[in-house]
Every structure is written in structure tokens, then in C-alpha cells.
């Protein structure tokens, strides 16, 4: 199969899946099968691409030329492949989880849900494969619009208000800042193509380039850098499968992916290391890490706690990009994968707890390990991955990130990362420990094992295994992220 064909398949498969889901509206089992088949085929194609693609001979597929000199095009490079693999693997897994969850929870509008999921994955893949800023921006905006029905799924007043917050923050930042930055880049350089080493070096005064970087980073609202982070906790009103895939994987990773891609392929790491504003942005990321952790510690609602934990973890990646060193790029890219697996596991567990035990608060979870041992064990392992302890995958990215702060001679950020790990231990690992070792608050817990719905449990096991596998078999991932910067 030619590379161009693989590109097209990666985009078309989610779309066909969406159409299939719509057509099978009346037959839920067939509908769910369509989703799973779509997810597995997509994963197959992405894996095929990963195995056959030679990064030394990049292949570009131009789709359309809407403007003179600017095209919508696809081109794979290592960072994009990381993102595509993560999203491609986790879509079928989340679909599996969603089947268990949506049915056990008797959710309405399931067809709309699965359809919107599929087209959101289409937008995500387009972001991962984008060859230039115009394609990225188009896919980025599509992702915001396609995920909106998922955020407002519940249809309640709270859901609608959350939808407005979501749409408002993301579109204001993307139209006001990101689009401005993109057009400005075009007027400075005459191109928008992602190029190794960046395209902006020497094209304008450092002050202007610094301002441009600020516009790009603030313009990427999906990366939830403070103060544009409010949409993330607001979006927690969505059903848990939505929170897990979109807000642990697709939407937020699209945000940090954009920042990483812009840093490496538009600015270039060398330019970043010279810009003052990169330093200040990394400090802002550090501030976000610490303050989001502190807020997380004070949240009793499980999903809210995980939301702020996500904000904190995303800033790890932003920090990594803003350090301007090669190890930072590797660390941030690796963390995209590690955090995705760990966070999705955590969200899966939280959803399982909601559906099986009907609990939403941390304070209600004492002793629940007796009723849901597998779920809480998974929770424990995923939390350890976030903290960054072996033998979980997160340890690799944490280690590399610490290395990167030292390479950039930034002791303050080194301390920030270490303190943050401590905070993570407290507000994440504490939960499963209390679940297993504390006395049950709710006497109902002692009545035997009532685990998550079967499909959801399988999904949880898969992603937890992923966290472990990513530790032991990290070499392929490591080699991949090493190739980002030649």
C-alpha cells in the first residue's frame, strides 16, 4: 500500500465509521460493532504506516489548495506518529469502555455520541498528520466543533453552560491568538510548512518573535495553560468516556502536540532557547503545574481532581517544549504517550466507580478496594505512572523531563517537577491506598465484589497493561521520539 493511500485511509476510516454508526441507529449491537471495527481498522492502518514509513524520505499528500501558495496537506513525521499511534490505539479501547459504560448508565442519544466520537477522531488524525499550519488550524477548529456535542451530551443546563465555556475559551483563543499568529508567521516567512529546524529564525526582531511565541502558546487553548484552563474542569460534565478519550487523549493532546510541533518545526529549538518569552512561558507552565496540583488536592469530586491533574500534566509538556533543549522535546513527546495511557486509565476507573458503586467523591471511596479490587489496583498503577515511579511508563518521561531541566540549567523548574511529583503522590496515590486499607465509610461495600461492567473492565485492563508495557518495552517509543530532532 502506498503511503498516500495510508494517509487517506487514516482520514477516511473514522468518517466511514461515523456514517456507519448513523445508519445503524436502530440496531445498537450492530452500531457498536461498527465502531469497534472502525477503531481496529484505523489502528491497523496507523501501525502499517508506522512500520513502512521512512522518515528520511517524507511523503506529502496535498489535498487542496484553498489559497494561492497555501495548501491543505498531510505529511508524517515522528511527533505526529506518536500522536497518531496513541489516538489510534486508544479509540477502540475507549469505544470498548464506552459500550460498557453507556449501557450500564442508560445513557440517551448514544448514536449521536458514537458518531461525534468518530468524527472527532477524524479531526484528531488530521491534526496528527498535518503538514503545515493551515491544515493544523483547520483540523484544530474542526476538533473543537465536533467535540462540542460530546461535551453537552447530557443536555442539562449545566451541560449547556459548560458547552459555552468550552466553545468560548477555545474559539476565542484560537481565532484571536492562534489565527493571528499563523497569519503573522505567513506574512513574515511566506510559508506555513512544518520544517525541520523551524522557519522563523532571523525573520524578525527577537521581540516580535517572542511575542509570536506567546500568541501561539496562548492561542492553543486546548493545552490548558493558565489562565485559559477553565474549559477543562467545565467539560467534566460530559460522560466519562468523553472525558477519558477527549480530555485525556484527543483534545488536550492535540493542544500540547500543537505547541510541541510549533516549537520544533516553526520556531526551531535553537530559536526557542534564545527567546526570553520562552523562559517566561516555561515559568508560567511551572506555575500552572504547582497551582493546578494544589487545586487538585482540594477537590473532593473525582473528575474535578483528575481534571486539574490533567491541567498540571499538560503543563509538563508545555514546559518541556519551552526549555529549548533536545531532551525536552524527547521528554515532552514521550509524555504525550505516557500520560495518555495513565490518565485514560484513571478516568476509566472513575467512570467505573460511578456506574457500579454510584460514587463521585474521594471521601466516599474509603474501603471500596474490597468491592472493586481490579479497578482500584488499576487506579494505583496508573497513579504511580503519573507520579513517575518504575515499573510504570511514566517514569521514563519524568526522568527525561528532569534531565531536560538540568540541560537547560533551570533549577527552579527542576524543583517544581520534584515537588509536583510529591503532590501527585498525595492527591492521586492516596485514593487507592485509602480504598484498600481504610475502613469502609459505606457499609454496603462489604457485600462482595461488584466490579465495573465487563467491557469497561477489559478496557481498564488493556490500558493498565499499556502503562506497564510502556515501561518494559519503551525502546520503540524512545527511538521514535529520538528521531524528532535529527
Amino acid at each position: 500500500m502506498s503511503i498516500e493511500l495510508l494517509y487517506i485511509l487514516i482520514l477516511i476510516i473514522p468518517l466511514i465509521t461515523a456514517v456507519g454508526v448513523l445508519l445503524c441507529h436502530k440496531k445498537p449491537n450492530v452500531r457498536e460493532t461498527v465502531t469497534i471495527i472502525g477503531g481496529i481498522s484505523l489502528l491497523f492502518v496507523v501501525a502499517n504506516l508506522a512500520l513502512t514509513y521512512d522518515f528520511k524520505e517524507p511523503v506529502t499528500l496535498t489535498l487542496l489548495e484553498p489559497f494561492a501558495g497555501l495548501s491543505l496537506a498531510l505529511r508524517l513525521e515522528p511527533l505526529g506518529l506518536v500522536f497518531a499511534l496513541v489516538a489510534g490505539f486508544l479509540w477502540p479501547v475507549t469505544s470498548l469502555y464506552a459500550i460498557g459504560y453507556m449501557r450500564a448508565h442508560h445513557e440517551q442519544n448514544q448514536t449521536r455520541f458514537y458518531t461525534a466520537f468518530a468524527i472527532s477522531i477524524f479531526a484528531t488524525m488530521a491534526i496528527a498528520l498535518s503538514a503545515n499550519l493551515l491544515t493544523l488550524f483547520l483540523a484544530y477548529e474542526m476538533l473543537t466543533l465536533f467535540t462540542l456535542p460530546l461535551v453537552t451530551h447530557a443536555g442539562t443546563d449545566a451541560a449547556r453552560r459548560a458547552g459555552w465555556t468550552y466553545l468560548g475559551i477555545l474559539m476565542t483563543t484560537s481565532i484571536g491568538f492562534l489565527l493571528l499568529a499563523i497569519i503573522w508567521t505567513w506574512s513574515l516567512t511566506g510559508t506555513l510548512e512544518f520544517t525541520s529546524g523551524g522557519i522563523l529564525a532571523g525573520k524578525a526582531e527577537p521581540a516580535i518573535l517572542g511575542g509570536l511565541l506567546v500568541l501561539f502558546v496562548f492561542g492553543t487553548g486546548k493545552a490548558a495553560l493558565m489562565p485559559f484552563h477553565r474549559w477543562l474542569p467545565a467539560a467534566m460534565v460530559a460522560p466519562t468516556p468523553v472525558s477519558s478519550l477527549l480530555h485525556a487523549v484527543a483534545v488536550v493532546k492535540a493542544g500540547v502536540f500543537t505547541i510541541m510541533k510549533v516549537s520544533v518545526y516553526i520556531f526551531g529549538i535553537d530559536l526557542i532557547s534564545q527567546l526570553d518569552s520562552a523562559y517566561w512561558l516555561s515559568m508560567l507552565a511551572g506555575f500552572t503545574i504547582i497551582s493546578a496540583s494544589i487545586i487538585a488536592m482540594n477537590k473532593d469530586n473525582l473528575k474535578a481532581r483528575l481534571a486539574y491533574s490533567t491541567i498540571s500534566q499538560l503543563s509538563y509538556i508545555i514546559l518541556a517544549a519551552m526549555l529549548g533543549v533536545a531532551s525536552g522535546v524527547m521528554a515532552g513527546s514521550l509524555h504525550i504517550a505516557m500520560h495518555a495511557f495513565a490518565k485514560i486509565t484513571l478516568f476509566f476507573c472513575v467512570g467505573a466507580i460511578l456506574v457500579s458503586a454510584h460514587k463521585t467523591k474521594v471521601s466516599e471511596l474509603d474501603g471500596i478496594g474490597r468491592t472493586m479490587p481490579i479497578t482500584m489496583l488499576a487506579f494505583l498503577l496508573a497513579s504511580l505512572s503519573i507520579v513517575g515511579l518504575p515499573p510504570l511508563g511514566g517514569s521514563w518521561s519524568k526522568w527525561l523531563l528532569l534531565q531536560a531541566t538540568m540541560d537547560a540549567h533551570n533549577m527552579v523548574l527542576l524543583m517544581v517537577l520534584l515537588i509536583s511529583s510529591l503532590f501527585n503522590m498525595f492527591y492521586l496515590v492516596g485514593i487507592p491506598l485509602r480504598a484498600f486499607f481504610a475502613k469502609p465509610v459505606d457499609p454496603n461495600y462489604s457485600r462482595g465484589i461488584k466490579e465495573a461492567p465487563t467491557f469497561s473492565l477489559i478496557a481498564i485492563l488493556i490500558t493498565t497493561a499499556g502503562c506497564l508495557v510502556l515501561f518494559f518495552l519503551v525502546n520503540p517509543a524512545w527511538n521514535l521520539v529520538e528521531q524528532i530532532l535529527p
Partner: protein
Amino acid sequence: MIHLPVLIVVTPLLAGAISVLLNSRKGAWFITLLTSLFCFYASINLMQMVQETDVLSYTLGGWAAPLGIELRIDALSALMLLILTGSALLVSIYALKSVEKEIPEQNQVLFYTALLMVLAGLIGISVTGDAFNVFVFLEISSLSTYALISLGRDRRALHASYQYLMMGTIGATFILIGIGFMYVMTGTLNMQDLSQRLPAVADTNAIRAAFAFITIGAGIKAAMLPLHQWLPNAYTYSPSVVSTFLAATATKVAVYVMIRFELSLFGAEFSLLQMPFDNILLGLGTVGVLGGSIYAVYQSNVKRMLAYSSIAQIGYILLAIGLASESGFTAALLHIFNHSLIKGTLFMALGLIYFRFASTELSVMSGIGKTMPLTMAAFLIGGLSLIGVPGTAGFVSKWYLVTALLDASLWPLALLILLASVLTLIYIGKVIEVAYFRPVTEGRIRQKVPQTMIVALWIFALSNIYFGLNSDISFGISSLAVNQLIGVTP
């Protein structure tokens, strides 16, 4: 073929006369359809001819200028013709059922006649090479427009029409006074001659006054803030067909008059640099953008909301002209084209809603995402285009506009313009929310809406996407027009 320039003007005029004589409702519609079809065909041909030979010149009756009337079609005129005739064609298809529903039977023949007169007038303005001729056609189209607006079902339509009549007549009279001054100082009414003779007398108060009168007059017709007062009422209370056609064409033709007089006649140097018109346009354009968008957010009648939105969009166009650069002019012309597609879609969708509910209040639209899915989907596309989401024609305009602003190092203004898009997001978002996320007010029956109206609507909607993904044609014509305009100045 050689006579196309005059045929494109005369055909609607004759068709109007025939339809009134025929006195048949179906016949009047059919004549309108045929006429707009022919005019569209003619405008495409003219566009192709212009691309080969730069400018087409045609003398009426064989009497040479400057005594005779000359028709001059350059790329800018051809662009206006495309917009006018394309909109007219789609509106004609749409009108069959819409007029049946909204206009009383005894007035329908007169409606179609007046519509043809408006078309004739607007086409005439775009193709004429004689300054006084502009005034004549302007009055033909304006008087017919006042009549059309007054045919709206709402009682306030009469008042709206009267308001527009007052302001529009003042505008047209100002233009006439300006033309008069120019004639006195140069002795000719032919545009080519004027452009050659004006520089010699440019430094006189008479010419400066002429410039001011013409600009203000055109500004009134174009709804340039603060001369925009007539537009909200006129668009809101007129029949759907009328508001669609006006929104897509009328104000743009007024902007065309402004551009033609300023750039072709007075010359860019005089208009934009000697008279400080560039700053005035920048200022008024920005205020228009912000004011129009802010007003739109607070409207509960969606038609009125879109009317204020049109004021904002005209603001964008004037802003782009005020940049006084090649990229600025190109962006302006591009947006003239794209905006007619956007507003055509939006107003046609509203017309379908009015068809079913006899109201365009936001409250009526609750849940129609389910009961009128095709209509709302088209509205959504138009709305996304208005916001400027990539993949739509509106994005193309926004792109070029922001690029032009950045080229002129006006990046705070660029930021302001982009933030105005967020305002657009708010008011379009309100409609989308009510349509898709509120419960249906009446039964979940999918009522039949006329297919002709849906077809016309969707042609408009899809062209938004087509020209959003492939801007070769629209950008190409705009660049050609700008090259001719700036090159024309002596």
C-alpha cells in the same frame, strides 16, 4: 456577443415591462427566472471576455462618448455582475414559493416587476461608464427597492420603506450634487474623460466638495456607520426574497459606486492620501465592525441580528479599502464576493423559517434543528462562514483581510478584527443553541418545505464551502480588478 453589455442592462428592463403587461403571476415569475438566467449567462461571458481584453467598451446607440453614454466593463464591473446575477438567479428560484406565501396575490405581478427593475438598476450601475447614468440607475433601483420593502407583511414594513426612502433619496441627491460639481468643473460626464480631467482641477473646493458629497451619498446607501439607520428596519420587515437579495447585493453596489468614483475617477492618490479618506474609512470601518457585531448580539429577532451583522461586514469591507494598499483592496473585493454568498445563505434559511412560522423571532426557532434539519444545516454552514471557520468562504476573506492589516503593520487592529469574529460566534451560537439544543416547541412532525427554496438555499450554502476550499476564481478576479483600478489612475 458584442451587444452583451447593453443586453444585460436592457433585458431586465424590458422583462419588467413585459411582466406588467402580461399580468400573470406565474408568468411574471417565469419571466424573472428566464431573465436572471440570461443575465447570469451574460455575466459569465462578460467575465471571460474581460479576462482576455481587459476592458470592454460599448457605446449606446453608436453615439460616441463624451456626448453619448458609454458602457465600460472592467474586471471590477464583471465581478459585481457575477454577484448580482448569481444572487438574482438563486433568488428567482427561491421566489416561486416564497412570494406565493408572503405577498398578497394582487401585488405579486408588481413584485416581480419591481424585482426586475432593481436588478436592471443595479446592473446598470455596475456597467455604466457615464457618471450621470450612475445616478439614473441608482434611482431606478432605489425606487423599486422602496416599493419592494413596503410589500412586507409586517405593518412596520411601510415605515421601514419610508425611512429608507428618506435616507436613500438624500444619499442619491448627494451623489447627484457631487456629479453636478464635477460636471461644472470638467465639462464632461464620461468616467474616462473625468478621470483624465479631474487631476487638473483637483485642488479646488468644488472638487473637494464633490468628493465629500459622493462619498457621503454612497456611504448612506452602503450603510456605513453612522449612516446605517435605515438598514435594520429595511432588512427586518421586508419580504424574505427582498431581504435576501438586498443583503447579497444592494449595499455592495453602493460600495462599488464608492470604489469606482474614488479609485477610477478621483484616483487613489487624491482620494486616499490628499483627502484623508483612508483614516476615515479605517475608523468608520472599525466602528462599524464592532458596533454592528455588538448590536447583533443583543437582538432577539434573528433577521434583525443578521441586519446588524451586515453592517459589521460592510465595516470589514470599508476597513479593507481604508488600508489603501493592493492587498487591502483585494481583500475588500474578495469579501464583497464572499459576503454575498454568506448572507444569501443565511437570509434564505430565515426565509424558510418565516415560511413555516410567520416569524423570525429566536423563540420560535426552538428545536428546529430536528424539525427543519436541512434548513438549519444550511444556516449552520452560513453561520460558520460568517464566523470565519476554516474551510468556508468567510475564512478566505478573513485571512486576506488580516494579512493586509499585518502588511500595514496594524496588528492591534488585526487582533480587534479577530476578536469581532468571537462576537459573531456569540450571536450565531445563540441561534445554533436554540435550534439544536432546546426542545421542540411544536410536534415533531417534519413539515414539508418547498423544494425550490431548499435547492436555492443549498446552492448558496455549498458555494460557501466551494469558494472556501478553492479561492482561485474569487481571488483571481479580485486581483485582476485591483490591478486595473490602481493602474487606471493617471
